[in-house]
């Protein structure tokens, strides 16, 4: 039997025996069908269904009549739902900007410090990434206990160093609750932008740096004019992933402040509101798949449109080295 060429079927000469060709077609089909079916069934179909479900009225788990845009109108414009939606959206935006400054900003500084390869850099690198591999549930509970008004480590530490007057019920106070959550998120995730930026820095060719150092004595100028533009691809990744993460925020507030975004909705975000709407909670046990789907579709569209256009914009300023 003639062995087929190595180049795959499209380049297989027409003279190759038909049995062999269809055998190869079967083989490729066998390889592709299971993964494609899994993707179609558990990713593509649910995404499109979510879109369709938003246009129906739901009684519990049973789909009712087609209602057009009524669910969207409810969550966006009809009280009391609209007030919750916009309050949650506002909090998501605040979380995103705060983390952009704290998490990505600190990540860049730490990456720069690690890049200088000072003694102990390896150890610092392992330490900064450790919380990234831990479950949000563990991190959320540990910090919830630390933030306890009386027995928590945070207030105890403040008292121990003579700053007891600053002690406050961090998670119960409307002024501090969201900031405390943002702090914990930054603590847990700062290792990710750090290592993405570090990988970018390590890929800068040393000739470019040496040439640039001939031109300027100021490291700050060097960072602004040479290093930052050269690690633009890392920045794109950190910015866009943080954006997607901020608008999908759910686990940390769920564990630390509960499903209602207490106190008084000060920590409410779209993820929590979506979950409450779709699956109910103790205080308002009604579940509404229609409104939940409408929220999911709006969040999905918002994330997809902003993330895509922002990626395109950020990619444009990237330079190929």
């Amino acid at each position, binding site marked *: 039997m003639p062995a087929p060429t190595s180049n795959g079927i499209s380049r297989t000469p027409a003279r190759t025996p038909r049995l062999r060709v269809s055998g190869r077609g079967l083989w490729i089909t066998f390889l592709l069908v299971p993964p494609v079916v899994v993707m179609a069934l558990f990713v593509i179909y649910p995404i499109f269904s979510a879109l369709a479900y938003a246009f129906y009225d739901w009684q519990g788990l049973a789909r009712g009549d087609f209602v057009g845009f009524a669910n969207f109108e409810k969550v966006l414009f009809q009280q009391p739902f609209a007030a919750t939606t916009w309050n949650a959206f506002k909090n998501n935006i605040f979380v995103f900007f705060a983390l952009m400054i704290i998490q990505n900003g600190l990540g860049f500084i730490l990456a720069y410090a690690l890049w200088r390869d000072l003694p*102990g850099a390896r150890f610092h690198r392992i330490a900064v990434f450790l919380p990234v591999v831990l479950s949000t549930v563990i991190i959320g509970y540990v910090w919830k206990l630390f933030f306890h008004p009386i027995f928590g480590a945070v207030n105890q530490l403040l008292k121990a160093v003579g700053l007891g007057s600053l002690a406050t019920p961090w998670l119960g106070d409307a002024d501090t609750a969201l900031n405390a959550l943002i702090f914990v998120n930054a603590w847990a995730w700062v*290792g990710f932008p750090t290592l993405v930026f570090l*990988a970018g820095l390590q890929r800068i060719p040393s000739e470019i*740096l040496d040439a640039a150092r001939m031109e300027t004595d100021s490291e700050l100028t060097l960072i602004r004019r040479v290093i930052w533009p050269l690690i633009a691809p890392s920045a794109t990744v950190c910015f866009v992933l943080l954006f997607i993460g901020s608008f999908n925020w759910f686990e940390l507030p769920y564990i630390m402040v509960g499903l209602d975004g207490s106190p008084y909705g000060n920590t409410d975000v779209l993820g929590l509101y979506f979950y409450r709407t779709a699956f109910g909670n103790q205080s308002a046990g009604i579940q509404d798949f229609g409104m939940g789907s409408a929220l999911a579709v709006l969040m999905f569209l918002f994330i997809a449109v902003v993330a895509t256009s922002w990626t395109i914009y950020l990619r444009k300023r990237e330079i190929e080295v």
Partner: protein
Amino acid sequence: MSMESRYDKPGLLGTYGRDGLMQIILIANTVLMLFPIAIMVMSGFKSNIEIFQDPFSIPDFTNVTNFVAMATETAFMRYLLNSVLVTGASIFLLLTLGLMAAYAIARYEFWGSSFLLLFFMAGLMVPLKLAIIPLFILFRDMGILNTHWALIAVYTAMGLPSTVFIMTGFIRTLPRELEDAARMDGASEFRIMVSVMIPLCRPAMVIAGIYNLVPIWNDFFFPLVFIQNDALKTLPQGMTSFIGEYATDWGVMFAGLTLAAAPITIIYIVLSKQFINGMTAGAVK
């Protein structure tokens, strides 16, 4: 590396001043990262009174009553086993299916192959959490709601795009000579894949495996929605039960959190290089 040119020019603060500042920043940050984790571990060895009166003291590390209570009086071991089962099955399936798809796309030329790659890539962009309602209804109709299969199905699907992405890129770099030689010897396509190509793919499988291991092992959202039966809960989800149960016993809670953090922390410390490469794989081309 031209280390000299980096160090022989005085900068804003003078090079040594700047490196000193950087070293201080790194040390301060490492303390901030590790101190809370150390407090968590140490509190696991303390009683309530010790935690409340002396939160930062070094405990008696031979006093393991809290850990024994956690391991014997709660369903901790059950949750741990469930997590191992679900994560293991998901990683096995997503690596197998991902390898099949990537192998076909990278190794054979056929009509629609680039479209297929795009089809998988699109999955990278989709936050599957937002499709939780249709998934819930789909699993109810399939009769696998409240079973581990629901989790395995969703994790496998969630992990496929990144696996296909990582593996396709890797397989394309493998030389064709080996498989050509095997083909000359009359080996079947199946044999070539299993005995020649798969062993070569191991590095990429490690990367793809770790990239998916951490989010699957740590996931809380999907079990929260799909699993009600306490005996089937995974570790992150089960933690909410035993934290609720021991809400007044801080020592036991900290012991439980420490135990729950232990498996992935140990693997991470042993394989830190692979973890860091794996988890930033999608971000760093």
